[in-house]
């Protein structure tokens, strides 16, 4: 199809959209609602992924030491940590340092700790991992060896719950795709109905063009373009609404967490994903337009 025909299809599609503003608005809002649901799920999962990624980079082993750990066991534990390439750094926290941290982080509970006869908090080693070398399976093996080492009371491994969080994010993402797909299928039918109304409105024109020998592609083209324009408009509306909702939600979340925007690290959909939402909207519109255009034979 030449650029000339594309111009023709675009002109006719825009004229048709202007003619039936109300039904087009309904169709655009239907697509927008479907994409808003999909976009909302994507936005949640993008931020979950971002949080998982950030927390993974700062993932720690916390090795809690038994109060009666012997010097030999301490040396053996240090040797074990030295031999693990994923260990970027480590810091020994004594029982007294742990009590200090507790009083600093939980001032309301500090009095309770002071009432106790002896400090119940264990000494520990906080191990920071190098994300580039932190292979999941090897770390699991390493965590098991540390747990089994003498003088170790407990091991808390951040990566485990981060992996669980990652799986939850993936589940949310899939739920979004499935729900979005169902709603988008409904949107396809809405677009098809609206474009068929447009086809009926210009049936005479299409019939005349058929008798003049206009190629079938040219008769169907304006209808498909009309669907694509509706889909694109719906996608832009949904992105606008999603961004507005994101800004409102961010203010509330930051207020609830008492955090600064940087600390919360909440972000909108990246440009590639926003473009994907627009492409999906246009594809939905294209499918609806084509469904209607099939009636032109």
């Amino acid at each position, binding site marked *: 199809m*030449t650029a*000339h*025909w594309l111009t*023709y299809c675009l002109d006719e599609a825009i004229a048709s959209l202007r003619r039936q503003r109300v039904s087009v608005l309904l169709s655009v809002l239907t697509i927008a609602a479907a994409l808003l649901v999909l976009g909302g799920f994507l936005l949640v999962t993008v931020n979950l992924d971002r949080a998982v990624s950030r927390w993974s980079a700062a993932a720690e082993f916390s090795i809690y030491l038994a109060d009666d750990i012997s010097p030999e066991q301490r040396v053996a534990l240090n040797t074990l940590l030295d031999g693990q390439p994923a260990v970027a750094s480590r810091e020994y926290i004594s029982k007294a340092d742990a009590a200090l941290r507790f009083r600093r982080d939980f001032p309301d509970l500090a009095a309770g700790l002071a009432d106790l006869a002896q400090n119940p908090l264990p000494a520990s080693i906080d191990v920071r991992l190098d994300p580039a070398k932190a292979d999941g399976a090897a770390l699991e093996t390493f965590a098991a060896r540390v747990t089994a080492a003498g003088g170790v009371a407990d091991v808390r491994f951040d990566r485990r719950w981060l992996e669980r969080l990652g799986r939850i994010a993936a589940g949310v993402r899939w739920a979004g795709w499935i729900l979005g797909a169902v709603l988008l299928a409904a949107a396809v039918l809405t677009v098809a109905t609206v474009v068929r109304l447009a086809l009926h409105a210009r049936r*005479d*024109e299409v*019939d*005349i*063009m*058929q*008798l*003049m*020998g*206009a*190629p*079938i592609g*040219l008769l169907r083209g304006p209808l498909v373009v009309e669907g694509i324009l509706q889909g694109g408009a719906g996608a832009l509306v949904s992105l606008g609404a999603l961004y507005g909702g994101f800004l409102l939600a961010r203010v509330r979340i930051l207020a609830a967490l008492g955090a600064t925007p940087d600390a919360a690290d909440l972000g909108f959909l990246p440009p590639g994903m926003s473009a994907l939402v627009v492409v999906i909207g246009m594809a939905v519109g294209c499918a609806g337009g084509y469904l209607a255009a099939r009636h032109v*034979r």
Partner: protein
Amino acid sequence: MYGRGIYALRDVSLVVEKGEFVFLSGPSGAGKSTLLRLLLRQELPTEGSVKVAGRDLAKLTPSQAQTYRRAVGFVFQDFKLIATKTVLDNVGLVPRVLGATSVQQQRRTFQVLKWLGLQHRMNAYPLELSGGEQQRVAIARALVNEPALILADEPTGNLDPDLSLEIMNLFRDINARGTTVLVATHNRELMRHVGRRAVSLDHGHLVETS
């Protein structure tokens, strides 16, 4: 043939030479419009064949049928102009959809409108025109692509006698330029005035040739 054994046209054998002007006459329901629809490949014969320039229309693919129609101009009794488009756009639509450049489209459209004396009405909408003007616009649309064959189905059916005569003279001029013209009409007065070959249909049968 329609369903249940009713024939719209039966045992019709008609040859129209290139460059000829032929009237197709007969009462309402005689089969004139059906014959024109067969020639435009809007319908296919249940038996027999319709050939134009040696090509059997029934054997054309949908795409070939559209290509064939580009060589045929069609004029309707009710004009079939697009009410939302100006005269210029109605006539210019043909070269536009057939891929002419904007300059070619304007040149061809203006030429044909000028020839039909409509250049001063090119920005008017169909409903702002008289019946005669509307039919001339429809003829301009049929002519703008310089077709080899013009088919007209009762083109003067909605016009008064003076305008009808004017339109028939236009068809005669078009034919004089070498275009084959086939006009369906039941107006014998007009046929006599133009004085060309006439073929008559009655109840689907070809009953008379003069």
